[in-house]
């Protein structure tokens, strides 16, 4: 199924969204506007002719200095229909896009990784923290304007000095956060 067929199915389900056919040599590529992403994903997952029930990955590419500089890429798989599709969302330097964790739970970590590496914010993501880089890292390494080799002094830490009360508060805050 090529991109135009998928867009033909999607257009009545997501009215008013400006889908765009992307060039590709492997399987269908569809550009989706960021504000209609969640509806589109739900339609892709639930439509009977498509059934994209499996999320393969979420990643991004930085096309600096082009504007808008980022493209967030979603690879989806439909086992039932033997289909693959690539969704692309254009995001600017300080832009953001909604999380699709409500559609596929497995999008959580890949989105976190995209934030970690590119600094693209996913609105509504419950746990947008560093994933691969250390918690106190500065910058987003996969960006094209991030230097490849940097000289940075080895980070050392003082022994943890924390009162018992603070420790308990931390644990409790952590528990509350995880309970949600």
């Amino acid at each position: 199924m090529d991109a135009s067929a998928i867009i033909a199915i999607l257009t009545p389900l997501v009215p008013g969204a400006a889908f765009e056919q992307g060039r590709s040599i492997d399987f269908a590529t569809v550009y989706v506007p960021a504000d209609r992403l969640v509806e589109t994903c739900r339609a892709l997952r639930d439509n009977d002719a498509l059934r994209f029930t499996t999320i393969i990955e979420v990643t991004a590419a930085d096309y600096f200095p082009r504007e808008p500089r980022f493209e967030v890429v979603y690879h989806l798989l439909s086992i039932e229909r033997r289909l693959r599709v690539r969704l692309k969302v254009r995001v600017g330097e300080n832009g953001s896009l909604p999380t699709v964790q409500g559609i596929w739970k497995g999008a959580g970590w890949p989105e976190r990784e995209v934030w970690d590496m590119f600094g693209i914010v996913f609105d509504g993501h419950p746990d947008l923290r560093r994933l691969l880089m250390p918690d106190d890292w500065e910058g987003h390494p996969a960006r094209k304007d991030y230097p490849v080799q940097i000289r940075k002094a080895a980070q050392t830490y003082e022994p943890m000095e924390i009162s018992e009360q603070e420790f308990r508060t931390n644990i409790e805050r952590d528990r509350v956060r995880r309970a949600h």
Partner: protein
Amino acid sequence: MPSLRTETMTVNMGPQHPSTHGVLRLVLELDGEVIHSVMPTIGYLHTGIEKTAEQKKWQQVIPLVERMDYLGPQSNSLSYALAVEKLLGLEMPKRVSDIRVLIAELNRIASHLIWLGTHAMEIGAVSMLFYAIRERELLLNINELIAGFRFFPSYIRIGGLREDLPRGFHEAVNAFLERFPAKIDEFEGLLTKNDIFRRRTEGVGVVTLADAQQWGLVGPIARAAGTDYDVRRYFPYLGYETYEFNVPTATEGDVYARYRVRIAELRESVKIAKQAIARITPSGVWACDDPRVVPPPKDKVYTEMEALIQHFLIYSQGFTVPAGDVYVPVEGPRGEHGTYIVSDGTNRPWRVKMRPPSFMAIQALPAIVKGGLIADVVAVIGSTDVVMGDCDR
């Protein structure tokens, strides 16, 4: 009687715990022995391979990506090479594809052997590790034979293979394939009906098919839950449609089902490898004939000007790849290994992204082990067969 004050206990596991398969860290919240929640922390093995790859020429990326999934390295390089070849529009000769199939299957066997050894050892069958590693040693010898390198052969290259098969390759592979099925029986004799092993694994860490799809798990974990999705079947590459093999499945979705699926996959891999080695001639063509990518033979380099120029170009500038992006999946030992590459038309990749199956499996870990016992965590991690190099890249 005054009510007892109870509270949950937070326990740190890893990153240097022997059964976390490298450097996975889990923060477990326990209520007695029952797991309330798990918070995995990854990134201890992050080496920025994808960023480094953007600085290298196309061919130089092959050894880099092999270091991601260090137990099944050649599925990374295979998927990367196939992706670049797709952008270049290269067609591989049949012999090259057959050798790649053989290597991919031997690679799967080697990876599954490490899984089997460590998984069984963590559950208590310590001697399994030695039996499994002994067989894997023979596969590492074959790697050494073809490339002089035991772990990361970098034998699969863009445009074909590094060089032709060495003398003695067929004998070594045939000897292994002759010997190995009896060894699988031996492994199964030790574990499949072993009461202790079954009690530790049956009904533990259940993943339903719906969950597997939600969490993006494809590969042995999903096949143990009922789907027959296998990239080799659904989206054939390398001519897998011409090989006769089954896709083993199970429906229970527990640790034991994953064990049975992987053991059956060992047998299927032997079957495919036997068909492949029968098709491969001891010597013959080992690369495509595209002079842009494949350097000319040495005797021509020394006698012909054009060949010398070509040789010089390939080794100094590399080759350019048409602009565009492509995603190519292959069925790796842990599931779908995919490579997404973006080219801007120069001699270096603009972006290389691997789809890591271990990453998705660790993400799903909290949901799998929640409500189970702490002792089951080790069994579940072993059964998902995660490799931290693949997860952190």
